[in-house]
């Protein structure tokens, strides 16, 4: 039960929740039960079937409706006398500006992506409003408190970034199933059904072919009179047979690697494939293009099964055919969507056929969908626990009880007997470019890179700004916004296409530029350093920003896989940002705490703690113990004792 002081702080508060998903539903319920009276909630999403296993305020009949609005109505049923204001909108909308944020006593995040989290962090800093931030994945979760000047901000520590792969691994030398998925999704699928004008590295370049002329016609072009099935077989042979042969011709590549096996349709139980002719008639007519399924046509029912090479080949050909016959209009405009059944099927099948070539174990459609769609593991229980912890921290924040603020980690494997581990928050990072506004340095080729490259790759991708204004001294180089004069808009558009050194106010080595986001009220100072050459493979952006608590790429797949999925049948291969769920990929941050990492050899340990981002796990137990007073529930280091004995 809350104390009198707590209750009066709760009742006098006005809180903003961002996110009405897995954490959000639990949080709204717990806030309402805890007697919060004035709650505002922002969520741009609508309800989906796969939400219903944990977002308990939603029912089947709500599918398609606004999460924020349905959540409000559901909570008012058991707490009719409180005020809940829903916004079915993106938190990045200009309406939610600093003045909007200033109206709240505390902001509570239950978000699903890094971008929005950074945005909210900046608005909270600018508005001087405390932020309680959270994330879960599977059985792991965390709650952190960010109060300007008192504790670190959300961006003081590096965050794990979506994993990227070297292009040549994807196009020529895959060694893991995820490489095959990326190839199937980002290259093959895009080539077959996406925008034809997009650059695409699907066809491997033969090292000595640079001199020879490009083939006159595009093999992927579906010729007018060509039979769809014939086209499918041609594509099959080209991508799984011919392209592998071309790759094999680069002998250097295969000196230290196992050679892949080209696969042609004639080698793969062709008889079975041909039998399927005419089956299309039996397919039930469906009006929803997203429910067309090659699996169903072929008679494969269980998405958990791992299909044979022959079955994958059948799915591939059937799916390709169905795209042309049933969804012809979309071809040329499609991009991969994990909720598009046929797209998932063709990507699964293609990835598996490629995996067969390279001797990589095949996977089920269910697993492939998880990897391709970056689906985050999620259960109701962890979200409920995390929501409870958020409310506990929020109440402390409302009481300004600084000395008792805690970051809390929800672990899967107890550490020092703890399943829920509180840690004192860290102080602000003095070199954080967000809350300390520390200058950054950019190495860039100022006579080759355009302002557009800088805006896209640095200002948007790295700095997370959405409404940037770029200044060199008093000269404005670029600006966005509704109120721009026409001539200024023209000038800025022209500037975008100019290389930095040729801008009206030239940007060269030694120049200092300022980038400001008016909505976030964040200004970054960037020192420009000219650099002539960049390594295309290692530095694909052609520019390097330093001094930022940079998003780090995951280096040690195996370690995180083991930590993340230890009670799961399903191995998680990619660490990526969630696209649809309310859960952050916090796994690297917590995995170290989860009890296994510290037993890894030192080198593995250090490569992994780079990603922990939020926290250096070696400090945690010490910090947790240091602040313990004798009245607290004391924790005995049972594991440590046993370890010592073993060490003797």
């Amino acid at each position, binding site marked *: 039960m809350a104390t009198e002081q707590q209750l009066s702080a709760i009742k006098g508060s006005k809180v903003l929740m961002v996110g009405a998903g897995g954490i959000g539903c639990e949080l709204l319920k717990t806030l309402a039960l805890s007697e919060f009276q004035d709650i505002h909630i922002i969520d741009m999403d609508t309800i989906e079937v796969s939400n219903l296993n944990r977002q308990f305020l939603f*029912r089947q009949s709500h599918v398609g409706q606004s999460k924020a609005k349905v959540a409000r109505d559901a909570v008012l049923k058991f707490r009719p006398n409180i005020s809940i204001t829903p916004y079915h909108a993106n938190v990045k909308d200009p309406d939610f500006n600093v003045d909007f944020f200033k109206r709240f006593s505390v902001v509570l995040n239950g978000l699903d992506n890094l971008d929005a989290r950074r945005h909210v962090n900046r608005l909270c800093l600018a508005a001087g409003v405390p932020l309680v931030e959270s994330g879960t994945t599977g059985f792991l979760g965390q709650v952190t408190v960010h109060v300007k000047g008192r504790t670190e901000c959300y961006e003081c520590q590096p965050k794990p970034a979506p994993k990227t792969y070297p292009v040549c691994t994807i196009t020529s030398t895959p060694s893991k199933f995820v490489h095959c998925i990326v190839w199937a999704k980002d290259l093959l699928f895009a080539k077959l059904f996406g925008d034809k004008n997009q650059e695409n590295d699907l066809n491997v370049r033969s090292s000595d072919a640079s001199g020879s002329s490009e083939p006159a016609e595009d093999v992927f072009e579906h010729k007018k009179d060509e039979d769809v099935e014939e086209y499918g077989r041609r594509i099959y042979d080209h991508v799984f047979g011919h392209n592998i042969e071309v790759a094999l011709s680069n002998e250097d590549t295969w000196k230290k690697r196992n050679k892949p096996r080209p696969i042609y349709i004639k080698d793969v139980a062709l008889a079975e494939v041909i039998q399927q002719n005419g089956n299309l008639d039996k397919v039930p007519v469906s009006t929803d293009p997203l429910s067309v399924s090659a699996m169903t046509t072929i008679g494969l029912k269980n998405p958990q099964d791992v299909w044979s090479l022959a079955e994958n080949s059948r799915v591939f050909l059937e799916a390709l055919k169905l795209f042309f016959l049933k969804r012809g209009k979309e071809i040329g405009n499609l991009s991969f969507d994990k909720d598009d059944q046929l797209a998932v099927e063709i990507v699964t099948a293609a990835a598996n056929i490629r995996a067969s070539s390279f001797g990589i174990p095949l996977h089920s459609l269910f697993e492939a969908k998880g990897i391709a769609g970056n689906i985050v593991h999620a259960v109701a229980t962890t979200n*409920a626990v995390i929501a409870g912890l958020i409310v506990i921290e929020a109440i402390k924040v409302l009481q300004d009880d600084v000395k008792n603020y805690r970051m809390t980690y929800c672990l899967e494997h107890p550490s020092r007997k703890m399943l829920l581990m509180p840690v004192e928050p860290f102080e602000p990072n003095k070199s954080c470019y967000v809350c300390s506004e520390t200058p950054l340095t950019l190495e860039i080729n100022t006579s080759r890179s355009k302002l557009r490259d800088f805006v896209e790759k640095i200002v948007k991708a790295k700095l997370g700004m959405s409404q940037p204004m770029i200044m060199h001294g008093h000269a404005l180089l670029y600006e966005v916004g509704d109120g721009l004069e026409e001539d200024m808009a023209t000038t800025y558009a022209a500037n975008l296409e100019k290389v930095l050194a040729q801008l009206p106010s030239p940007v060269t080595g030694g120049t200092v530029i300022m980038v400001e986001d008016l909505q976030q009220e964040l200004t970054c100072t960037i020192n420009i350093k000219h650099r002539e050459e960049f390594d295309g493979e290692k530095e694909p952006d052609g520019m390097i920003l330093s001094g930022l608590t940079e998003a780090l790429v995951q280096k040690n797949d195996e370690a995180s896989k083991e930590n993340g999925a230890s009670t799961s049948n399903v191995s998680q291969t990619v660490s990526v940002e969630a696209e649809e769920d309310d859960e952050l990929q916090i796994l690297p941050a917590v995995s170290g705490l989860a009890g296994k990492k510290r037993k890894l050899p030192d080198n593995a340990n250090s490569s992994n703690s780079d990603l922990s981002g939020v926290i250096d796990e070696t400090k945690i137990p010490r910090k947790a113990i240091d602040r313990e007073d004798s009245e607290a*529930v004391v924790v005995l280091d049972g594991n440590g004792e046993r370890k010592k004995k073993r060490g003797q």
Partner: protein
Amino acid sequence: MNGEELTEQETALYDRQIRVWGVDAQRRLSKSHILVSGLTGTVVEFCKNIVLAGVGSLTLNDDRPVTTELLSANFLIPPDESVYREKPLADLCCDSLKDFNPMVRVSVQKGDLSSFDVQFFDKFDAVVVSSCSLNTKKSVNEKCRKSSKRVAFYSVDCRDSCGELFVDLQDYTYSKKKIDEMTECRLQFPSFEEAIAVPWRSLPGRLSKLYYAMRVIERFEELEGRKPGQTSAADLPNILNLRKELCEAHSLSESQIPDALIERLLAGTREFPPVCAIVGGILGQEVIKAISGKGDPIKNFFFFDAMVGKGVIEDIAKRDNEAEQFQIGCLEGCLEVD
């Protein structure tokens, strides 16, 4: 458990959690039967969690009429007296929980928990009790143990901003993932009666103080014939006397059970909703683990105190030499990863 596939509907609904615990665990869940008795806020949280997770059936037992106090941490019942005075607590919760997941059978079992026999508990895979007397707790635990198959027993109680969870999985075998392989582990759990009979002086010096405090209050309620939770700040002097007696009998320093902690536990007659969410969440996770037979279970107490923020596991069992060796052997096999 073999060969039966989940329906398309189940696969779609449970997609995200199947990615956490696998298809096999989901199948076992859908065939499990759970009984809960004592619909406190914490138990209601637990019910929500396992109905969403997709257990086969959930049986609710609580004949109490609804009071505003019982509603304070309950999100299943609208606070409209004209609605809730008609039915007992379990019926109202049942109506609401049914809605959460049409694939789960939710029903009500009338009657007093202490009156049910072994055959009754035999129907369930897990039994969760809350706010029941010490005697009932012990006897239900024993009936679960006498059942022909293993019936997991849990008791959970929250006072003020503290929560206690007890787990008895008897002789329990489970699997856990170690690197990429599944390994089998085995644990022996004591019953509640056996656990609380362990002399305090033989327990580790830094054991959660909440454990002792809960035992003192539990004993007080038993001696006075009070219903669980039917205590107030006025009972403080008598409880402090009892604490003295018990500490002397167990040769434990009274400072291990601070006055301030006992005062808090007595004053907070209503549950604290964030703690209900946390303890109900942990309990949900434990029951899911026990049913699926996957992952290290809590052995055998879990404590959470919102003032401190830690969620701690304590292993409270009689340690004769043999048993101790067995346990450590197993723990090393299970917990240490080289």
